[in-house]
């Protein structure tokens, strides 16, 4: 099974690297959102660092929602999805492969956006990097677990661009809250302070990765 997951991950990343199509969109959108939020909030220099966690996670969530839809659009060209589903792999394998791809793409976008927020909002994000990376990973995992599951619905349903965000945003509130609170806590005082929020993220991840693995077949079949 893991060989299949790896194969799908490599294939998707290779395509991404070749076309750089959605990767570019992802990154540019993330940067744009951060700039727009910063401009709209226009904090005094002393207040700015406090806003960093919120700006970060709001940008991640919106960028993620718009970027993740393409994951299954590329499978529709030439009916590649049919080719993959006819193979002996489990639908769960396909889900985990796509999940891994989405986490990587989010991480790449964040690698550029996080330093940018540090610069624009004078937040000392570099000093808490290891903890921050953990929070980002947990948040990405939770976000992608549901987003991957629902993105597969765009294959069949007559989905407007607005449909997926409308369905996903309320479901993803715990990731948003957990991510922001954990980032705040980490900036204030390291791991210990973030315990509650990290717990939320871990619980969310555990529930919805399992749910995704079990429910994906229902979404992708026929």
């Amino acid at each position, binding site marked *: 099974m893991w060989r299949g997951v790896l194969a799908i991950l490599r294939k998707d990343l290779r395509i991404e690297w070749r076309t750089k199509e959605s990767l570019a969109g992802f990154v540019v959108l993330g940067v744009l959102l951060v700039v727009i939020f910063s401009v709209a909030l226009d904090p005094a220099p002393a207040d700015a660092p406090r806003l960093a966690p919120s700006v970060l996670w709001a940008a991640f969530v919106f960028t993620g929602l718009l970027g993740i839809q393409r994951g299954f659009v590329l499978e529709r060209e030439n009916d590649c999805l049919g080719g993959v589903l006819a193979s002996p792999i489990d639908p769960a394998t396909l889900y985990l492969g796509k999940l891994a791809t989405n986490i990587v793409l989010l991480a790449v976008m964040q690698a550029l956006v996080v330093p940018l927020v540090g610069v624009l909002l004078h937040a000392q994000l570099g000093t808490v990097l290891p903890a921050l990376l953990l929070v980002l990973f947990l948040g990405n995992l939770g976000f992608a677990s549901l987003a991957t*599951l629902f993105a597969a619905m765009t294959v069949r*349903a*007559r989905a407007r661009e607005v*449909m997926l965000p409308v369905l996903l945003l*309320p479901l993803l509130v715990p990731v948003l809250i957990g991510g922001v609170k954990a980032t705040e806590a980490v900036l204030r005082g390291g791991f210990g302070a973030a315990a509650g929020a990290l717990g*939320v993220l871990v619980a969310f991840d555990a529930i919805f990765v399992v*749910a995704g693995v079990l429910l994906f077949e229902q*979404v992708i079949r*026929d």
Partner: protein
Amino acid sequence: MPLLAALFPWAVLVLMLVAQWLIFVVVPTEAQMGIVQRIFYFHVPAAWAAFLCFFVVAGASAVYLWRGSRAADRLAHASAEVGVLFCTLVLVTGPIWARPIWGVWWTWDPRLTMTVILWAIYAGYLMLRAFGGADEAVARYAAVLGIVGVLDIPVIRVSVRLLHGIHPAVLTNKEGGSGLTDPMMRTTLYVASLAMLLLGGWLVALRVRTGRLEAEVAGLRRELEHV
């Protein structure tokens, strides 16, 4: 069975009338908040009814996914509609209650916040079914959403408590079950809740029957087109 079905709406009516009588005539006025506090007997039962409806959505969706039962699918859809209805009721009675007492239309109290999120999730469910297109896959997608929504409830509950409320006072007031001092208050709450639940059940049953009729009509229409 048909006798039961015929009597049921009347039972609901009677119970609702009894509940209204209890709420407006019998139960003593609450000391701190005054007459407005009576909204509580609509607000809380509606919330319980909404939750129950959403659990039914999840259960029926699961049955539909694993057994293919169209009846289960219709039950899920109907429950979602009634659930959103009750949720709307909670979100409307909340501000009506809050405004005279705390001076604001809205508080980010954990329970209200959770209700908004739940409302959004299941309104999304209804949107998916309404606008997702005629493909039979849409019913399956909605079922997945129905299940995921309920799975999210505990996590939303916990995460929402991490937010600052605007009015901590509101928190303690609502948390403590709003300080039901008089035993009559408890009775009224239970009767009102039962009435609301049965009302919800009746609405769901009506909607399921309509759904079944709609499906039959669609089937007949298809048959006629292929003659």
